C-alpha cells in the first residue's frame, strides 16, 4: 500500500478493503480503536493524518486492506468521526460510498455520565441505552436517567 514515489512516500490505492475518509483531523487512531482493528489481525493499515481537505479544512484518512465493515462498525465510526465517509473498495474500484450517520439509538457502547443512573449500578445488568438528540454537535441522551452525553465526553469514553 505504501510506495516510494518521486515526491517521497505516497499511499497507493488498495485492492480491496475500506477507506474511511473525512475523519476530523486527529481522530484516525480513535477510529481504529473503536473498530477494534489491531496489528495482530493481519490487515495492512495506512493512516494519513492532518491532510488538507476542501470540505473540512484538515482531515485524517484511514485505509484498511481486506476489511469490510459491518453495520455496527458504521455506527461506531459515526460516534468518533461524525463527518466520515466510508468507501468500500473491490478490485481497486469504490463499490460503495456512504456517509456515516449517528444511529438513533446506541446500546451498550457508551456509558452514562451520571453516577446515580441505574445503568451505573454494578449489581444491575441493565444495558446503557442512549437516544440521539442532535447529530451536529453530537449529543445523546440516556433513556434511563435523561442525562445528556456530549461529543467531548463520547470521544473521551471511546479513546
Amino acid at each position, binding site marked *: 500500500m505504501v510506495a516510494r514515489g518521486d515526491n517521497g512516500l505516497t499511499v497507493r490505492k488498495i485492492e480491496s478493503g475500506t477507506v474511511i475518509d473525512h475523519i476530523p483531523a486527529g481522530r484516525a487512531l480513535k477510529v481504529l480503536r473503536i473498530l477494534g482493528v489491531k496489528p495482530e489481525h493481519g490487515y495492512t493499515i495506512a493512516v494519513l493524518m492532518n491532510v488538507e481537505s476542501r470540505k473540512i479544512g484538515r482531515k485524517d484518512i484511514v485505509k484498511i486492506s481486506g476489511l469490510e465493515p459491518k453495520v455496527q462498525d458504521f455506527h461506531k465510526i459515526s460516534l468518533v468521526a461524525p463527518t466520515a465517509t466510508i468507501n468500500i473498495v473491490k478490485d481497486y474500484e469504490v463499490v460503495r460510498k456512504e456517509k456515516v450517520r449517528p444511529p438513533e439509538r446506541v446500546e451498550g457502547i457508551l456509558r452514562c455520565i451520571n453516577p446515580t443512573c441505574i445503568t451505573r449500578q454494578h449489581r444491575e445488568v441493565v444495558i446503557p441505552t442512549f437516544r440521539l438528540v442532535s447529530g451536529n454537535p453530537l449529543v445523546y441522551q440516556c433513556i*434511563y436517567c435523561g442525562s445528556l452525553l456530549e461529543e467531548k465526553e463520547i470521544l473521551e469514553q471511546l479513546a
Partner: protein
Amino acid sequence: MAWRGRSIVSILDFSRNELEELFQEAYRMEEQLSKGRVEKILDGRIIAMAFFEPSTRTRLSFETAAKRLGASVIGFTGEEAISVAKGENLADTIRMLSSYADLIVIRHRYEGAALYASEISSVPVINGGDGRQHHPTQAMLDLYTVSRELGRIDGLVYGVLGDLRYGRAAASFILGLTRFKPEKVYLISPPNLGLRREVRMLVEDHGLPVEEARLEDVIGELDVLYVTRVQKERFPDPEEYERVKGAYRITPSTLEGAKGDMIIMHPLPRVDEIDHRIDATRHAKYFKQAAYGIPVRMAILKLVLAG
C-alpha cells in the same frame, strides 16, 4: 394509549386528554369519599409497595388509596428494603414482586430505576420517585390541585420556587405543565439550583413559556406559587448544601402585593421554606394538595388496574 395495564414512569408519557380523564375519575373518587361510599372495585387485588428509599406521603397515600378501593397491600420501605434485598439486585426483587402482586409502586434513589423495573416486571409499575428525575403521580395530583382550586390550569401564571435542580417534584410539575397552556412559568431558584439542562431542553422543545425571575419581582403576577425544599439528600457535596439551605423562605411579608386568590402549593415535607404563619392564610393549599393525593391515586389505581 389507554390507561389500563400501563406503567407510569414519567408525566411526559401522558397526553392532556389522558390527564383530563384522570382528573374526572379523581373527582368521582372525591365524591365517593365524601359520601362515605367507595366502590371496592379492586377487591382481591394485591398492590406491592417497593420503597427502596424512605417515604411517608407517597407511600401512605398509595396505601390508603389502595385500601379504600378494597385492594390489599404488601411491601417494604427504607431500611427494610436492604434486608429484603439481602444483596439481591433490583431486577430480581422486581421479578419476585411481579409474581406476587397485580401492580408495583416503586421508589428508588437511582434515576431510571422505575423505567428499568417496568421493563422487567410482568405487571404495571408506578414510579413513586426515581432519584432526582421523575415523580409523575405527584405531578398529576399537583395539576389536579390547581384545577380544583382555581378551576383551570390554562392561562395562569405560575412561579416554581426552590431546588429545581435536584427536586423531582418541581421538575415533574413543570414538565406536566407542558401538557397545558399556562400563560407564564417563572423559574425561581437559588444560583446553581436551576433546571438541569435535559429538563430545560424538554421544556423548550415543548414551547413552555418559562422565564427565570426573582420572587419579589413577580409575586404580584402569580396565580400559583409552587414551593419546594432544598433536596439535601441529593447534593453530591454537603458543603454545597450548607451554602444554599435557607436561601428562600415565604413569610407574611413575602406575600405583600400577592393576588388575593393566589395559591401556595408544596409537595411536602417542608423544612423551613414556608413560615408556619402562612398556614392559616387563604393562600395555603399544601395540606389540601396532600389530601387530593388520595382521590388522585385512587383514580390512578382504578384506571391502571380496571380501566
